[in-house]
């Protein structure tokens, strides 16, 4: 498993280096910030803004996965655990040049809900999850949430949750991706939890076949 993880890291690194069009990080952060602020002004309801950001992310994700699969040439993942590894080490690395830390969750109903030092549970059952912990978030450079946003429950980078959901849905996995904590809100870490809802049965060819 360790070798595969290193391989994923290497793939991610190569993909990032191989990209010819990169965007200035400040421009990216400022554009996203302007987008969120405009949404806040338009909707005036932070829960609604969260929903809209997620929807936007979903649309991005459904298109992004094609680009990702074409460039990386990776095949189907064996289990949900591997999905988490690929998303973190290859996906995020090749698009945002960040590598969030992956922590795999245990299956909720069956065994005890402790995370670490447990034999890996059957990693394909619905309810399996992984958590992505972000050390840095290029979307949220320079951002400080005002009081109302903190009280209203705004997840500033909620677009990322949508991207994950949209991308995985295109490869036959219905997932739920939500923010668990965010440093912008004063929490210790920024974490997204991705939980598998079910595998989708429609046979849509992924990548080129």
């Amino acid at each position, binding site marked *: 498993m360790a070798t595969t993880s290193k391989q994923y890291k290497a793939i991610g690194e190569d993909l990032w280096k191989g990209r010819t069009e990169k965007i200035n990080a*400040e421009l990216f*952060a*400022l554009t996203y*910030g*302007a987008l*969120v*602020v405009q949404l806040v002004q338009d909707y005036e309801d932070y829960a609604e803004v969260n929903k809209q950001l997620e929807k936007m992310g979903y649309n991005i994700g459904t298109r992004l996965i094609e680009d990702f699969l074409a460039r990386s040439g990776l095949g189907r993942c064996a289990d949900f655990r591997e999905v988490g590894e690929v998303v973190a080490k290859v996906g995020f690395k090749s698009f945002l040049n960040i590598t969030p830390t992956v922590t795999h969750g245990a299956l909720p109903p069956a065994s005890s809900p402790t995370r670490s030092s447990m034999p890996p549970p059957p990693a394909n059952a619905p309810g399996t999850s992984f958590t992505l912990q972000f050390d840095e978030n290029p979307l949220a*450079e*320079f*951002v*400080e*949430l*005002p009081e109302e*946003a903190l009280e209203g429950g705004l997840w500033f980078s909620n677009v990322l949750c949508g991207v994950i959901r949209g991308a995985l849905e295109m490869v036959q996995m219905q997932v739920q991706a939500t923010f668990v904590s965010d440093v912008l809100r004063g929490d210790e870490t920024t974490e997204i939890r991705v939980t598998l809802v079910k595998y989708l049965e429609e046979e849509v060819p992924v990548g080129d076949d």
Partner: protein
Amino acid sequence: MSHHLFLLSPSDTPLYSLTHYSSKPSQSTSSPLASNLPSWSTSAFAGTLTALSGASSASQTQHGQGGTVKIGGGQDRHVIQMIANASLDAIEEVMRKESVMYLKSVDKFNEWTVSAFVTPGNMKFVLLHESRNDDGIKAFFNDVWELYVKTMLNPFHTAHTPIRSPVFDARVRASAKKHL
């Protein structure tokens, strides 16, 4: 020894103000005029007398009895602000001649010196201080400038509105402690 910092927008709207009491020792020159006033004259009227009789400007600062400068309750907030506002003309004059960012001391009153720093975006940082501390003040201004730029980059901050961020406030205070 205290310092008063004001951040002013290009239209001279105050966006941020800070009073910092430095723990560093300084040579405070007591104004001989103030110590001559009778001990009961702590009103603004007495201050005006001081100004009219000696100082070259219309603004004044209040002195405690015996030549020691009293801070806090003894010094009126609006007096300080008047000094800062009066120095704006001097700042603009200097700005017209040179185009450096850090204008050292543009104005001097009884014992308050006004130093100014003008950013490329025409924001004015005005600092009222009592002692000379050019290097420290220059470093402080540069720090405040950096912090100001970071605040401007926050998408939730509207340009030229008062800066209320507690993070900015904390960092400016820390920088003041370090440099002043």
